[in-house]
């Protein structure tokens, strides 16, 4: 509801996100991709239709912004969602090393750069140990190199921990770099499903076959 008027954001969306794979929801700004993700995370009500996830699955969510608690140190932010007795300090240490912020565990969010904060947010989602991680353009605000490093990090984490990742982005390059299944969303509908499972990581986004795919996606989005 915006200004008393009802807006239909999504219609007839029908998608199956495969387990243990990186699925990317790709679309232009305002096409409803974030809404779709928020419905999956139960942050937004859905008027019609249903979302079926195995009930025992834990879902993690990484937002567009880091959304760290400004009053907690990095390590406390990472363990934020955990109960005290469930905190495994070795595991947290491992996570700190994974995101490369071991030296900053006692720092506060305002002392970190945007990219570092986003890495902490990712670690927080991982510490929660979900089997599904939903990510809403988590790297959109980062510069090219940090972004690429974070994408590789994500792929590494995925290969290491075998999580189901559903990743929303408006960047075609990003989708092609990390996605095993790409769902192209346009005007509230899924226009295409592109399977890239046979492309091994690390991918060269500039290789001819991937450029072909990029052209195909651009046509679908236009």
């Amino acid at each position, binding site marked *: 509801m915006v200004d008393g008027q009802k807006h239909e954001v999504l219609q007839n969306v029908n998608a199956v996100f495969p387990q243990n794979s990186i699925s990317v929801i790709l679309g232009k700004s305002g096409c409803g991709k974030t809404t779709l993700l928020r419905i999956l*995370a139960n*942050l937004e009500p859905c008027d019609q239709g249903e979302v079926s996830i195995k009930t025992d699955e*834990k*879902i*993690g*969510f990484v*937002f567009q*912004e880091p*959304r760290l*608690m*400004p*009053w*907690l*140190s990095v390590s*406390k932010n990472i363990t*934020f*969602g955990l109960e*005290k007795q469930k905190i495994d300090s070795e595991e947290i240490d491992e996570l700190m090393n994974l995101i490369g912020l071991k030296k900053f565990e006692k720092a*506060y969010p*305002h002392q970190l750069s945007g990219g570092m904060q986003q890495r902490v947010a990712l670690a*927080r989602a991982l510490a*929660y140990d979900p089997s599904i991680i939903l990510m809403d353009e988590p790297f959109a605000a980062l510069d090219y190199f940090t972004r690429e490093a974070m994408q590789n990090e994500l792929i590494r984490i995925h290969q290491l921990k075998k999580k189901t990742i559903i990743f929303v982005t408006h960047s075609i390059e990003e989708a092609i770099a990390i996605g095993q299944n790409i769902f192209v969303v346009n005007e509230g509908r899924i226009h295409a499903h592109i399977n890239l499972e046979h492309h091994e990581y690390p991918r060269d986004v500039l290789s001819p076959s991937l450029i072909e795919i990029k052209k195909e996606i651009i046509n679908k989005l236009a």
Partner: protein
Amino acid sequence: MNNMIKRLIPIAIILVAWSLCSYFEVWSAYILPSPLQVWNTFISMLQNGELFIHIFASLNRVVAGFSIAFVFAFILGIVAGLKPSLSPYYNHIVEFFRNVPPLSLIPLLILWVGIGEESKIIIIILASFFPMFLNIKKGFASCDSKLLEVGKVLGLNTGQRFLKIILPSAIPDILLGMKVGLGYSWRAIIGAEMIAAASGLGYFILDAQTMSRSDKVIVGILVIGFLGVLCDKVFSIVSKKFTRMGGIKDSWD
């Protein structure tokens, strides 16, 4: 020049001017006693314990009234901050009483509860409740909904979200409200004691005035000022322990 010297310069000038005025008897000693006389009165009042009795009486009332007001302000602040839909019921009443100076209620309070401790404590509660209530309410109401969503996706229930997100994010506002409320309490108690009391710093000043002891009046004013500054300093030190760059150090987990 370091800051200590900068701070002392205006005080030294005032003291010198004051000494000169009383030395040349610009005004009679009855109107303006000399600094030395004020100092001697101060020392003798310290020695016979008179001063401590009054300080203790005022401080006692402030602590009692302020604590009660804080409990009310905290509970009602939570309700008001987290349930804005209830505001039509109380908002106009709060606005009304916020604009009524507590001292104007003294005639009624004396009539209802007498001139004992109760009337003074009620005055302090009335004076310090509103700044605390409004700040605490603002603290709870302005919690970032984006942070609350983080709690939601991490599976925290309503109680956990309150303790781990809403409360810590409200702490700076709560402390600010307490600081302002404490200042208001001091002002209100001195006023209340000047109208109806048999002890306390306000009473002491008024009593000295009727006895034409200007030196005691000045001692009373200086003590009130020093106590106020001291309270504020202690409070700043305590709140620094809790806050860190607009947030709170790891003290709420």
